[in-house]
């Protein structure tokens, strides 16, 4: 990957920009997400998550498995408000 490779397509973030956030002290997945918006777009991290984890593992000298994951939340894929109106099924 070159420094200019975009790793978060929803939020338009390059590898270089992510490394910059890490160097500013945002070392964890949750911290860097909130600072840079990586993984907060329409795909909710499907593309960028593993690349981000690899970058964080390298920077923290940890194994990718030790970086952890952020919480997976509904909906699994983007859904329109209209998809939920006129539904009468409860929990």
């Amino acid at each position, binding site marked *: 990957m070159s420094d200019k490779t975009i790793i978060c397509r929803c939020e338009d973030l390059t590898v270089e920009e992510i490394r910059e956030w890490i160097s500013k002290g945002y070392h964890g997945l949750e911290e860097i997400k909130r600072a840079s918006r990586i993984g*907060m777009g329409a795909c909710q991290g499907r593309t960028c998550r593993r690349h981000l984890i690899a970058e964080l593992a390298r920077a923290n000298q940890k194994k990718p498995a030790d970086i952890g994951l952020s919480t997976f939340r509904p909906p699994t894929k983007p859904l329109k408000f209209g998809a939920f109106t006129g539904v009468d099924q409860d929990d």
Partner: protein
Amino acid sequence: MIKSADVVVIGGGSIGCATAYNLARLGFKNVVVLEKGYICRGSTGRCAAGIRQQWGTEMNCLISRYSIRHFEVMNESLEYDGDVEFRQNGYLMVSYSQKEAAMLKENLKLHEKLGIPVRFLSVDDVKEIVPVINTERIVASTICMEDGQANPFKVTDAYYRAAGRLGVKFYTYTEVTGFKKEGEKITAVVTDKGEIATSAVVNATGPYAKFISAMLGHDLPVEPERHQIVVTEPLDPFLRPLVMNFFHNSYCQQVLNGSVLAGYGNPDEPKGINYDCSWQFIKELAAKIVDQFPVMKEVNIVRQWSGHYGISPDGQPVLGTVPGVEGYYLALGCGKGFMLSPMIGELIAQCVAGQDTTLPIGILNVRRFKKGELIVEPAVV
């Protein structure tokens, strides 16, 4: 871990970080913040990012008015290497009934008295400001264009970094498990990483506050109430003020990146910490939002999450000392912690330092609940 501290602040949200920053500014050399997760993990990072002055009690209005003055200059005053994204896009309060309209009128009198620039809008005015809104059932509405939004992550980060530069130490992933006392005096905070000797503790844990109080033998009547929120795909700007609807008990606003945030809390749910997402919520929210903004029907939701208000019996913050526990201070915004955090941080730091506080926080002391001196905030959503 550090062995002792002048003041230990529990909670790494906006109020905890703002309090720590203000304590350091007042000259406290050894201030520690304990956070059981990461900075901004709790209610601050989960809130809908709104900032308003349109409240129904004098203290809520005043604390928010002073806070807005802080937000207006925050990038500069905290020397932040970024933007806290404070935007005065306004808050539009909408009512569908005569009863809610009467409350808005009553509140307006208070705002006029305090010099908060709120005005009544005709339905035509509403339509002009928010062309996409359904005005069919609107009976009355007010707007304050000084109100608005800021980015909760960035605001907290700005305080966190400014406090760090003044020497405040932050311990994240560190959970408070108990306290040591001599008689009524606090002598130490016990955590899962060790013990810190201190004579002053600030509880800035929002919806967790009652659990911390319980460790000190103090019964705090502030209950966690779950709210859920959704965020949409980013859209071109179309919704300028935050729209708060008393009939639907909902809030909806477009933030700087173009996403719309919309949410509400169900006051009938059992009180407690619950980070789950419910199907019921998204179904009801969709009906509330599409009723107000029919164009939203075609907008994609990308994420749903949950957080909590700390609900106090009168809907006002709980600030200051605690009778019977010496060295214990409460710094709780109670459902509006983020928007009040700049001023709560300042007031609590003054209180801990033994100075006169900028605003008379005595009336927001926790003892009011025992004495039954409640001034109930009517404009809670």
